[in-house]
Structures are given as structure tokens and as C-alpha cells.
């Protein structure tokens, strides 16, 4: 079934293309289209999960120019990211429909929303560097209108900062790709690329360009400025995009570059693994520290994302099998947990008008479901058992020991402490303090249902980690089959 | 040989005067003299057709156009002494550079190369005896068709500069010739002769020097004289007859070109009926050229301020 990858892309592209032209009033058609597309995509992904587990691989080649082609290839790693984005897209669509009831420009929003997901799917399934770059840049373009959706001063400034960081990064990435391909020929993720034609310094320079290009989206320290600012976007945007699509695309890119373009042994030989790990660690600590200072909930969550994504980069940079498994599985765990927190932040903002931390006082009992999910998510972030966060941190610690970098344990400990430092006060305010005056009603199932589902997923993926089909199972399958050959 | 040297010397002197003279009017007068001298140079270079064209269009019509422009411009933006020139040094260097390069290239020309032999060989199948007309209307007829369209485009461009509320008025500025005066008398005597000379030039173009452009220009001069003498007012811009006359030349040429497709290719004139075809094209072209050139010199409709 070579056409399957294109079919998956279509499930996101077709509804988006049609939604653009729908008038504002056509709520039914729009919601139906988007929900239909999302469910179809989840169904396809589930069917592919079974196939890939059985060893099948899907591949489609779209010729762009003689010698230049878009290769869409579904392998285990692609499926990991695909599964995450498909599931969360469905949930976020439900959330967004409820969130946007009565607000203007819905057709425009859902149109670009679909384009973003299509770009994310493309990133996941891309088989060559150029295909990856094409979808990577499309993601930047499709995200900007969403960031500036409210069209007010704050979101426009956020949009400018976002483009200001993302476009130069794209340029750096393009230079790296072309520099690499002009020496080593078109780079496909399947067969190894012979980089010996390039001098070592050139290879290091190219690796640095790759990290810089991808680092902006993966919010590595010097390049992370745009993420907190992008919180001016509506809640669904910050939930799906900044917790899942955009940020993970950067991390996923780094995974592809380290494993499929350079290969583990060359990364070790060039000695670029350690600086990357160091950069990731600095980001982890720095993100958590900055999160402590934030008074707005969404800003705090944003800085928490900055630090959490670097867990993935850290795992990959440590190269050991356990560390990589930890990194990959954290890709899923952080996604699921963080989206729960953003959903709750969205509900607090929408229903209770609470943006800052002080507003959370005593909301626990009066908004029980939301606060419960929020607490689950927060605990998951801190990494307490049996939540999913704990599993990733364990593997990351193991990996650190395995690849002879004990200081990783120190970093994990410090960051967990900091996580606790900036999450526990919130929980304390929610449950222990006396309630403020107004009695907000949270009973909007459109917002609540997705939050509950993601919170459950965060809990479940920790509890059933040992099972084969859990995120951990898939991650270890990937590591054994693809990367330790 | 001596005449050539004197002629070249005079051409250069007049060109220098035209370019570096003091007033605009003086420059235009020198330009007209330059045109006459250059047409004499064409006679020396054995190119009679070009001499006719240069005298009629180069010196004649362009001179009239510039003279009338000088008159109107004085009224619109006259007065005020100001510097004649700007960035003299770079202009001088550029001009000297190009001239030097041209002379170097001209001296470096290898053995003389020309298409005289090919034209002579193909002349019998061209339908006309005069090689220049053969090239103009048969071998390179495409250039001539485009050229007539260029004239038309220039005219539409000039008309598009009319003030919005003047649209539809008569072309050019209202002329004030004294009724019964000398100009009017001249206006009655010359046209018949002018018409005859114009038509003769077109007809003679097939065998000897002459042709649509030279004939058309003479007819345009007659039309201008009639307009200036006040005997025949300039046509209104919107007059359908005028527009048909404007379009006749290029339209007939294009029609013949498309008809050529039936004989195997665009603009293909089968040798046996080439002469009649060329003559019809020339007739239509002359009409269009005469009307277009006259209107171009008259300029855009300005019923407001008289000359």
C-alpha cells in the first residue's frame, strides 16, 4: 500500500483546504470535517501500528525535480511521533471546537490548524533531509497565523519574535543540508551517508548548523526566547503546537540528524555528542529556574516545556541504548502530560478568568475535575511514580550511567527538585487555600473530556509501561531494531 | 573625396552645436540642419531610400515636432535661468568611452560582410525590383509590421495623456491662421502637388527609391499644412473613420500575413502574386502612416489653450 503515507497527509490537508473556504456560520460542516479527518487519521495510525510491528514498511516517492524527490517513509520512529500527533490532534480539535464557540475567524483557525498537523505528519514521515526541510518550513509558515490569531498587539509581537527566530533557523538548516548534499549526494535516512568526502571541521560545522537550525524549534537555551512569548496565542494553539507539534518537531529533527544522517559512531568520533548533552543539560536547569520566576501559569508551563524537551535531546546526545529509549519515550510522555496542563490552564483562563498563579487559590474543590487533572499532570512533570514522567527519568538516569556520564543523574535530580519547586505551590494553592469569591462553572464537557483523557493517558502510560504496546514498548522496539544494528 | 570630408566636418560641427548650444530653440534649429546634412551623407553612401526617409522623417517631422514642443513648453514652464548641465564629468567619460570603443570596433571590423548578394539572388522571387522595398516588405516584412504597430502604440500612448475632460475633443492645439492670409493661400496651392508627390513616391517605391514611409510622411506633411492653415480642422479623437484609417495599415499587413498561412507559413507571399500583395499592403500602410504621423505631431487634444 504505497499510497498510505499520502492518505495520512490527505486526512489533514483535505479538511484544511476545504475549511478555508467555509463561511464562519458553517459550524456543523467545519467541525464534522475536522473531527472526521482526525478520527480517520487515528484509525490509519492504529492500523499502521499493527503492520509496522509485524515488520512492514510503507514508502511513497513524490518526484520534485530530476534527482530531487519527496520521500514519505513510515518506520518505527516515524510511527512514534505520528501516533502522538494523531491522537493529540483529535483531542485538541474537540477542545478547540468548545474553546472557540462564539469567537470569530474559526474557519481561518481550523484551516491553518489542519495545515500545521499536516506539516507535523510530513515531518514524522519524511524519508530524506529535503522532505524533512520542506515540511519543517511549512510548519513555521502554518504556525504564524495561529500565533497571531487574536490579532492583538501581544500576539503580533509574539508572531514577529517567532518568525525572527524560526526563519533564520530555516536558512541555517537549508545551508547545512545543501552543503552536506553537495558533497555526499542526496541524503536518505535509510542508507548511511558517506560523509568522508567532507573534512572533519566541515562535518562539525554542518552538525553545529543542524543543531542551530533545529534547536530553535527544540527551544535549546539561547534560541528558546520565542516559546514563552508565543503563549499569547489561544489555548488550543499553545496546547497542541507548543506542547507537541512545533517543539517536538525540533527534537525529532535532532534525533533524525544524530541517528540517520550522522550515525552514532560518527557522532562519537567527531566528539559532538558531549557538547550537545551539555547544552541540553544547561537548558533543562535554566528552563526550570526561569519557570520559577514566572507569575503567569502559561508562561511557567512554557518554560517547563523548554526544559522538558531538552530531556529528549539529552537522552539522544548520551547515545547509550537506555538513554535513547528514555529520550524517545519522554517524547510521548512529555507530550501527553504537558498537553493536559495546557488544557487545564486553558479551562482556568476561559471559565474562571484565571491567568496568574494567585488566581488559583481554592479553585480545587470548586473546579474538581480540572484541578485533579492539573495535579496529575504536575506530578507527572515532577516525575513521581507511577506517572509517565518517572519512567522516562529512570531510563535517562540509567542511560547516563551506562554511557559513563554520572553527572546526568545530578542534572536529573536538580531538575526534578526544581520541577517540584514550581509545581507544588500551585497544587498547594489549588487544594489548601480558602476559595476566592466567584463560583466558576467548569461543566463544559467539550473542554473537560479531552483533558481527562490526556490525564488518564499520562497516568496509564506510566502504569502499563511494561506492556508491549505502551509508549515505552514502542520506544525500546525502535531502539533495538533500528539503532543498535 | 573632398566633399565627403567637408560634409563629415559639417555634420560633426552641427551635431556639437545641437548638443552643446545655449537655447533649446537654437538646438532644435541645428538639429534640423543636422538632419539635412545627414540625408546628404546618405546620398554619398549610395542609400537613396534612406536619404529620403532621413530628410522627411529625421529632419522634417522630428524637427516640426520638436519646434512645436519648444513653443508649448515655453508657455508651460518657461523662465528661470538655471544650470544647463549636471554630472558633466561622468557623462563625458562615458561618451568618450563608448566612442572610443566604437571606433576601435569599427576599425577592427574583419573583411566586409553584407547580405547584398543574398538579396540580389532572392530579388526575382520578391515581387518588387527595388531591393530595399523587397527587404522592407517581403524578406523582413515582420519588422515593418511591428514598426507600424509601434507608431500606433506611440499614438495611443500620447492620446492617453489627455486630460480626462478633454477626451473626445479634436487632436492637437487649436490653430490660429489668419483667414485669407498668406498661409491659407499657401495651404490651397501646395496640397494638390503634395498629394501627387506622395502617391508617386509610394508607387515608385516598387522599382526605384521611395516607399510607404517616405510617401506617407509627405502626405502627413500635407495634412499638417492643411491643419495649420485652418482649412481642415484636425479630426476628433473618437471619430470612427479616423480610427479605421489608423488601423488600416497594420490590419491589412496582419491579414496578408495570416492569409500566408494558407501558402505554408506566416507572411509568405507567393512570388507570382507578390507584387499586387505588396502594393495593397503599401497603400494601406501609407494611409495609416500619414494619419498616424500627422496626429503624432499634432499631439494630444487640447481644446483649452490655443497655439
Amino acid at each position: 500500500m504505497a499510497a498510505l503515507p499520502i492518505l495520512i497527509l490527505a486526512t489533514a490537508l483535505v479538511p484544511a483546504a476545504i475549511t478555508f473556504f467555509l463561511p464562519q456560520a458553517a459550524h456543523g460542516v467545519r467541525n464534522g470535517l475536522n473531527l472526521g479527518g482526525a478520527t480517520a487519521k487515528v484509525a490509519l495510525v492504529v492500523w499502521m501500528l499493527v503492520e509496522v510491528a509485524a515488520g512492514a514498511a510503507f514508502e511513497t516517492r513524490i518526484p520534485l525535480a530530476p534527482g530531487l524527490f519527496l520521500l514519505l517513509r513510515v518506520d518505527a520512529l516515524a510511527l512514534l511521533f505520528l501516533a502522538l500527533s494523531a491522537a493529540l490532534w483529535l483531542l485538541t480539535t474537540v477542545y478547540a471546537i468548545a474553546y472557540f464557540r462564539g469567537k470569530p475567524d474559526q474557519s481561518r483557525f481550523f484551516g491553518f490548524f489542519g495545515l500545521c498537523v499536516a506539516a507535523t505528519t510530513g515531518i514524522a514521515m519524511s524519508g530524506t533531509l529535503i522532505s524533512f526541510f520542506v515540511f519543517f518550513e511549512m510548519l513555521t509558515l502554518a504556525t504564524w497565523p495561529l500565533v497571531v490569531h487574536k490579532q492583538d498587539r501581544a500576539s503580533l509581537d509574539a508572531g514577529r519574535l517567532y518568525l525572527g527566530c524560526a526563519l533564520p533557523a530555516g536558512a541555517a538548516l537549508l545551508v547545512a543540508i545543501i552543503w552536506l548534499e553537495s558533497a555526499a549526494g542526496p541524503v536518505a535516512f535509510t542508507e548511511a551517508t558517506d560523509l568522508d568526502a567532507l573534512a572533519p571541521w566541515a562535518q562539525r560545522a554542518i552538525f553545529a548548523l543542524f543543531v542551530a537550525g533545529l534547536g530553535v524549534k527544540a527551544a535549546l537555551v539561547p534560541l528558546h526566547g520565542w516559546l514563552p512569548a508565543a503563549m499569547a496565542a489561544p489555548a488550543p494553539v499553545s496546547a497542541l503546537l507548543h506542547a507537541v507539534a512545533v517543539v517536538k518537531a525540533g527534537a525529532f529533527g535532532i534525533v533524525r540528524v544524530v541517528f540517520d544522517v550522522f550515525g552514532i559512531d560518527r557522532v562519537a568520533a567527531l566528539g559532538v555528542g558531549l557538547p550537545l548533552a551539555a547544552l541540553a543539560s544547561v537548558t533543562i536547569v535554566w528552563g526550570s529556574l526561569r519557570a520559577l520566576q514566572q507569575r503567569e501559569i502559561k508562561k511557567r508551563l512554557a518554560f517547563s516545556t523548554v526544559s522538558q524537551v531538552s530531556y529528549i535531546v539529552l537522552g539522544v546526545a548520551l547515545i547509550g541504548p537506555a538513554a535513547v529509549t528514555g529520550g524517545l519515550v519522554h517524547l510521548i510522555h512529555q507530550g501527553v502530560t504537558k498537553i493536559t496542563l495546557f488544557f487545564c490552564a486553558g479551562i482556568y483562563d476561559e471559565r474562571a478568568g484565571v491567568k496568574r498563579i494567585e488566581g488559583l487559590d481554592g479553585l480545587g474543590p470548586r473546579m474538581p475535575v480540572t484541578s485533579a487533572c492539573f495535579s496529575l499532570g504536575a506530578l507527572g512533570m515532577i516525575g513521581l511514580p507511577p506517572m509517565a514522567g518517572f519512567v522516562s527519568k529512570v531510563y535517562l538516569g540509567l542511560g547516563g550511567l551506562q554511557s559513563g556520564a554520572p553527572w546526568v543523574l545530578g542534572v536529573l535530580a536538580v531538575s526534578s527538585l526544581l520541577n517540584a519547586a514550581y509545581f507544588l505551590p500551585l497544587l498547594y494553592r489549588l487544594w489548601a487555600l480558602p476559595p476566592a469569591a466567584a463560583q466558576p462553572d467548569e461543566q463544559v464537557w467539550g473542554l473537560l473530556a479531552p483533558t481527562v483523557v490526556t490525564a488518564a493517558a499520562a497516568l496509564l502510560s506510566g502504569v502499563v509501561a511494561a506492556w508491549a504496546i505502551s509508549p515505552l514498548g514502542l520506544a525500546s522496539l525502535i531502539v533495538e531494531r533500528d539503532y543498535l544494528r | 573625396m573632398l566633399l565627403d570630408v567637408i560634409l563629415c566636418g559639417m555634420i560633426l560641427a552641427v551635431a556639437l552645436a545641437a548638443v552643446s548650444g545655449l537655447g533649446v530653440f537654437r538646438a532644435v534649429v541645428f538639429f534640423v540642419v543636422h538632419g539635412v546634412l545627414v540625408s546628404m551623407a546618405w546620398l554619398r553612401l549610395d542609400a537613396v531610400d534612406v536619404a529620403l526617409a532621413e530628410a522627411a522623417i529625421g529632419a522634417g517631422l522630428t524637427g516640426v515636432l520638436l519646434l512645436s514642443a519648444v513653443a508649448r513648453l515655453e508657455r508651460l514652464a518657461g523662465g528661470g535661468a538655471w544650470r544647463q548641465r549636471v554630472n558633466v564629468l561622468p557623462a563625458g567619460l562615458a561618451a568618450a568611452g563608448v566612442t572610443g570603443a566604437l571606433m576601435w570596433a569599427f576599425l577592427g571590423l574583419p573583411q566586409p560582410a553584407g547580405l547584398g548578394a543574398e538579396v540580389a539572388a532572392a530579388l526575382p522571387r520578391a515581387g518588387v525590383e527595388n531591393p530595399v522595398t523587397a527587404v522592407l516588405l517581403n524578406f523582413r516584412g515582420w519588422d515593418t509590421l511591428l514598426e507600424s504597430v509601434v507608431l500606433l502604440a506611440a499614438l495611443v500612448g500620447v492620446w492617453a495623456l489627455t486630460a480626462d475632460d478633454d477626451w473626445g475633443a479634436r487632436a492637437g492645439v487649436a490653430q490660429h491662421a489668419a483667414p485669407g492670409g498668406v498661409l491659407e493661400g499657401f495651404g490651397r496651392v501646395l496640397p494638390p502637388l503634395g498629394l501627387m508627390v506622395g502617391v508617386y513616391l509610394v508607387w515608385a517605391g516598387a522599382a526605384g527609391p521611395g516607399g510607404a514611409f517616405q510617401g506617407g510622411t509627405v502626405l502627413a506633411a500635407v495634412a499638417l499644412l492643411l491643419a495649420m492653415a485652418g482649412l481642415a480642422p484636425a479630426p476628433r479623437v473618437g471619430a470612427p473613420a479616423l480610427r479605421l484609417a489608423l488601423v488600416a495599415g497594420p490590419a491589412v499587413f496582419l491579414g496578408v500575413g495570416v492569409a500566408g498561412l494558407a501558402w505554408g507559413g506566416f507572411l509568405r507571399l507567393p512570388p507570382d502574386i507578390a507584387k499586387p500583395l505588396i502594393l495593397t499592403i503599401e497603400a494601406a500602410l501609407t494611409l495609416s502612416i500619414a494619419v498616424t504621423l500627422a496626429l503624432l505631431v499634432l499631439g494630444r487634444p487640447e481644446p483649452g489653450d490655443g497655439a
Partner: protein
Amino acid sequence: MIPGDGAGGALMATVALPLAGSLLAVVLGRHGAQVAGGVALGVGAAVAVLAAQVAGGGVLRVDLGGWAPPLGIALMADGLAVAFLGLGAVVMAAVVAQAAALFSTRGGESRAGYGFWPLVMVLWAALNLTFLSRDLFNLYVALELLTLGAVALVAIGGQAGPLAAALRYMVFALMGSLLYLLGAVLLYAAHGTLDIDLLAIRAQPAPPDLVAAGLITAGLAVKTALFPFHAWLPPAHAGAPAPASAVLSALVPKGSFFILWRLWFEAMPDLAAPPVLTLLAGLGGAAVIYGSALALMQGRLKMIVAYSTVAQLGYLFLVFPLAGGAGAAQPWEASAWTGTAFQALSHGLAKAAMFLAAGLFVMAVGHDRLEGLRGLARTMPMAVFGFGLAAVALLGLPPSGGFTAKYLVMTAAFASGQVVWAGVLVVGGLLAAGYLYRPMAALFADAAPGPLTPVPRRLQALPLLLAGLAIGLGVASDAPITFLAIGRPDAAAEGL
């Protein structure tokens, strides 16, 4: 068209139809729009038939009047020419559709309503001829017709600003024509022919050829508004009415650049010493930087888009050092050559879309100052989306045709070791992001309460359609690239 022998029919129709149309429009003053619509359809069909013929039977040559060069004039349609004809047909169709609303002659014949249609069709015929003709003097007449039409279109507005701009354009254009004519005269004096293919055989590095090549290149550089000679372009393209400026910016400079391309790749391929080619590309690079810098400082939308044209035209000149000269065909030449063709095509579509969108904004708000465009994203979503897609194509971001062009040229730059041109492309792309962000941000800002005349969706679809084509050029770029390869001069090895 009369079927006659199919060979020349379609090719001639692409030039003869607009000519006939302009003549008809001169006579039928009030029905210019309908005539132009008919011509647009006719030429579109002719280009399609021609494309089929060229795709099937390869390069198509027509000797006008049955006289072969050096005596007669030859027209030739190869892959490149037909691609540019296609670009012209598409852009013209959209321009005619929008101009029909702007220059409607319902209320009796107005000056602009009368003048616009013949001029735009004459301009189109001249443009198509510059892509097809193989004779240097015939190209001179076509250039002259192109310039007169363009200058008249700039001045058709009638206000003082555009008149001064049209005059400056005229002065520069006359300068360019003179230099070009000088070059052509010298070539005829040296070789006795003006046909490009015959010149290719007879040209040798002797004084007349070198001087002629220099003069022709200078003349055409002035007409293509290459960096030191670009002063005339922005005020002229911004001063013209929107549909006219779409044609002026997207198509007219490409006509003169196309002749330069034919000269250096077909008439005198190995006459140019590398330093000359590097100088041309250097000026191109300077145009990119300078044009973008000035675009950043403009307050009016149409001026930003016009300066963007100066910058984007600079990219085209990068092809000379990468693919020109140096006799033996290198593997990367094909990619630079095709990349530049793509850049021209994608820029044509995107720039036309941008100017048409700017025209709609002016139609809605009455002026094109940036602060007046605030909040149009909500009231004119389709036009703004079209403008955005066009911006993506100009930036050279995937999936647009601009990206394919940038990728191909950058690969050639890296493969041939001349990395500086890749730098120009990257920096140019970022600067373009800079100056195109300002209008986008204004469009997306919250709506300032101002008088707003509603613009029909039918008109808003035009820029969106053109911009969509520019994006589509990138997505389905395989077919055009193989088409462009038909009749490429030194069919370099297929390597990328």
C-alpha cells in the same frame, strides 16, 4: 487560428492574436475589455497547443515569410520560451480579469478605459515576441514596442508622480535601446547576419564582437533595472495602476533579461571571460541587498513590492557565473540554469499576485500606505491569503516554486565552489522576510475603523489563484523541469 500547417500556426498566434486584439481595441473604443478577454483565451489556447507541439516534437522553428536567416527572420519556441509564454498567458489572464473591473467602460468611453486595453495587448505581443524571436534587430523593435507600451501604461494614471516616473523610465529605456542597437549594428557589420544561431557559429573574440557584447549587455541591464540602473523601476511600477504594475513588474523586465540569457548562452557562449560573468552576478547580488534594504524603509505597500522586484531580479543574474561561459558543460550547470528559469517563473506569478492584491487593497481603502491596511485580514481574507502565499514564494520557502529555484541554484553554487552566491540567496531570503513581514503584520493587525468599499470575492480569487500557481510550481516541479530541458543549449549532464 487557421489550422494551415499546424507547425507555425500556434506559435504565430501567441504574437499575432494580441496584435490583432490591440488593433481591434483601438477601433472598438468601448469594448476593450471584451476584446482583451477573448485574446487572453485565444493566446492561452495557442500556448497550450504550442506546449503540446514542443513537448511532442521538440524545438519548433518558423522562418517568417518563408525566408531562412540570414535574409529572413526566424522565430523559435523551445522549452524555456514556451514556459515564459505560459507565465505571460497566466499573468495576463488574471490582469485582464482585474483590469476589466478597474477600467470598465460602461459609462461611455473614458481616456484611461480607452488607452489601457490596446497598450496592454501591444505590450503582451511584444513580450511574447522577445521570448520567441531569434533576430537581434527584430528583438530591438520588440523591446522598443515593449518599452513604449510600458511607459504609456505607467503614465496612464495622469497624476504628477507617475508622469515623472514614466519620464524617468523613458529616459533610462531610451538609453538602453540605444546601447542595444549599437551592439546589434556592430554585430551585423562584423558578421553580416543578425540571427542568434548564425552568430553562434561566426562569433569570435575580435574587437567588434567584444564591444558589441558589452554594449548589448549594458543596454539590456539598464532595461532589466540591474543594480546601478534600477532608479527608474520602483516609482514607475508603484505609480502605475495595479493591474498595469502587475504586468510591468512580473513580465516586462523578464523580456529584456530573456534576451540577455539568449545572448550569453546561445549567441556567444564562450566569449565572456569569467571576471565579466562574476561582475554581472556581483551586480545582481548588490541588487538583492540594496533592493531589500530600500524595501525595508518604504511606507507604501506598492513601493515595497516594487523594490522587491529590484531585489528579486538580482537573483536572475546569478546564473551567469554558475552556468555561463567556461565552455565545457559542468554537471551543476543544468541545475543553475533550470533554477534561474524557475526563479523567473515563480517570481513572475508571485509578484503579479502581490500587485493584484495591492490593487484590491487600494480599491478597498483608497490608498496603499501601510497604516491604512490594518485589519484587512478579517475583511478580505482571500486577498490577504493570496498575498501571504505570494510572500512565501518570494521568500523561497517550501513548498513554493521559489524554494525549488533557491534549492537548485544553491546546490549549483555549492557544487561549483562559488559559495558566495549561495550566501546571497540566503541573505536575500531573510531580508525578503524582513520587508514582507511589515505589510503582513499590518494586514493582520486589529481593524482601524475606516471607510471600506467591499471588494467582490470574484476579484479576490485572482491573487489567490496566481499565488496558488506559484506554490503549485514548487509542489509539481518535476514536469516543468523536464519541459524546460527541451532545447537547452548545452544540455549539461543530468546531474543535480
